């Protein structure tokens, strides 16, 4: 299982980083969210993986490492706060700068920010 877990963490990291390297705010936000999933799983697993070992005293035979869990909880909350801020900032940036490019300027030859989806049915 460890291998699969590590693979997923790596994949999430890769996907997250790729999206954070995009040029528009929304994909970047999504990327950062993916990245934070990867980070949380990674930090969580630094206490090693254990099944059926919830750290509720008296409920399990052996216990997982509770410390990383606590750390990840903190990390999740902080991550949430940061995401929230950056999301709203994205809106603000678009209203201030007129576009949603991370650099505040539409690169030459960029398609219209809101070109319509071709909806299949």
């Amino acid at each position, binding site marked *: 299982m460890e291998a699969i877990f590590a693979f997923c963490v790596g994949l999430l990291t890769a996907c997250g980083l790729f999206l954070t390297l995009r040029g528009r705010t929304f994909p970047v936000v999504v990327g950062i969210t993916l990245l934070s999933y990867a980070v949380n799983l990674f930090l969580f697993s630094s206490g090693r993986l254990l099944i059926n070992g919830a750290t509720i005293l008296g409920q399990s035979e052996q216990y997982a490492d509770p*410390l990383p869990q606590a750390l990840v909880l903190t990390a999740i909350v902080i991550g949430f706060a940061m995401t929230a801020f950056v999301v709203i*900032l994205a809106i603000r940036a678009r209203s201030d700068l007129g576009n949603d490019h*991370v650099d505040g300027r539409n690169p030459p030859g960029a398609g219209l920010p809101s070109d319509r989806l071709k909806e299949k049915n």
Partner: protein
Amino acid sequence: MQHWAVLPILIPLLSATLMLLPPLARTIRRQRITSMISLVLMLGSALVLFHLSTEATQLYQLGDWQPPFGILLVADRVSALLVLLTTVLATGAVLYSLAGDDNQGKYFHSLMMFQLMGVNGAFLTGDIFNLFVFFEVLLIASYALLIHGGGKQKTQANVHYIVLNLIGSAFFLFALGMLYGTLGTLNMAQMSTRIADLSPGASILAEAGALLLLVVFGLKAAMMPLHFWLPKAYASASAPVAAMFAIMTKVGIYSIFRVHTVVFGEHAGDLAYIAIPWIWPLALLTLVIGAVGVLAAPSLRTLVANLILISAGTLLVAVVLLNTQAVIGGLYYLVHTTLVTGALFLLADLIAQQRGQATDRFVVSRPMKQAPLLGLLFFIGAVTVAGLPPLSGFVGKALLLQAAETATQMGWVWSSILLSSLAVIIALSRAGTNLFWHVSGNKTGTENARPIQIIAIVLLLLASPALVIFGGPATEFAEAAALQMQQMYPEVQTLIAEGQP
């Protein structure tokens, strides 16, 4: 039970919180008073802590839990000094803001206090995850402060600043995972003792973690090539905020020092000083980029922002030289540069206000209403920051030059530091002559600067002559602090030892 060590964190937290609640939340006036009162209290407690730390390192076990299990605050000379420095800087910034900047948007005073809490926490904590938490506190506060006053530039700069720092925070957590996953502890003192005993495989993982931490701290410290966020962010921030930001890069450098020269210091076996070879070239490059930026700067704010880069590079040099003299110079220089750059940000704002359309750009403009006064302040600031005698800059610079030991070190360190100083001299003489003397038309429009603003700037600038006049005691303190800092938290080690059955 002495609580001094925790006060620099609690006082701002409490006052910031109270300012969100009635009755204080109602009027800006009440918030201003609260803010000033808490600053006075903080100055007081910081001074006491500073005094106590010279007698013995102040350890504070939060929740009364034995380290390494609980979070421990460590107020040794250095952290006490930095807390004091932060408070002084904040006092200057807040005083300045009272002239009206604090009313450009909501929550200014609360956010400023939160920022203080974060910075002080980062300086005081002895626990690496707690360090992360305080990093986030000071970051989120800075995000919020950066947009204070509004405007496109701020928004734009903020986007870059935040995204880069979010990636940085992610890396921080990766690194923490690697370190906890190998060392099994978060207490920095205990980490430092465990590194040497790691199995080969684990020690490589720990090394990876340590190096990743360098990226994180380097980003905060604006170490090249992670400095890109800084110039725009600092140049666009509103004056008091920018002044306050002068301390933020120092947090990164302080962390690099703690982690990469103490925790991963000489006791770390194979991992001793792993990061140093990386920092060497980057420190010098940071200096160079800063110098180039200073020469390229089209406006005073940008110039000062790049001065921050130069100071970051200089301090990194102080880190990598790995000797006491360097740390002494570094500490002295840190205090000097933080206060003077802070003052210059404030001054740049006044200048911009009095030059009308031209603001702080180096173009011909109408003469300033208070040219002589501002000119004098600018002159003092410029001489100080350029490291020209008789003001404080030269002492730190000379101490660092002396710290370079081998011929190679001298070659690199001296050339980069001295050339960057030359660049600063050129740029500042140019800036000064352009801003104050290259004028046309007559003084119109703007009203005089408010006395409180001048007081704030003077307060920060006074440090410069003081640091020279009392250079003897100052450097002696720095020496004591340096020697103490290079040891591996002896007091904490004993405390941990007591805890072990």
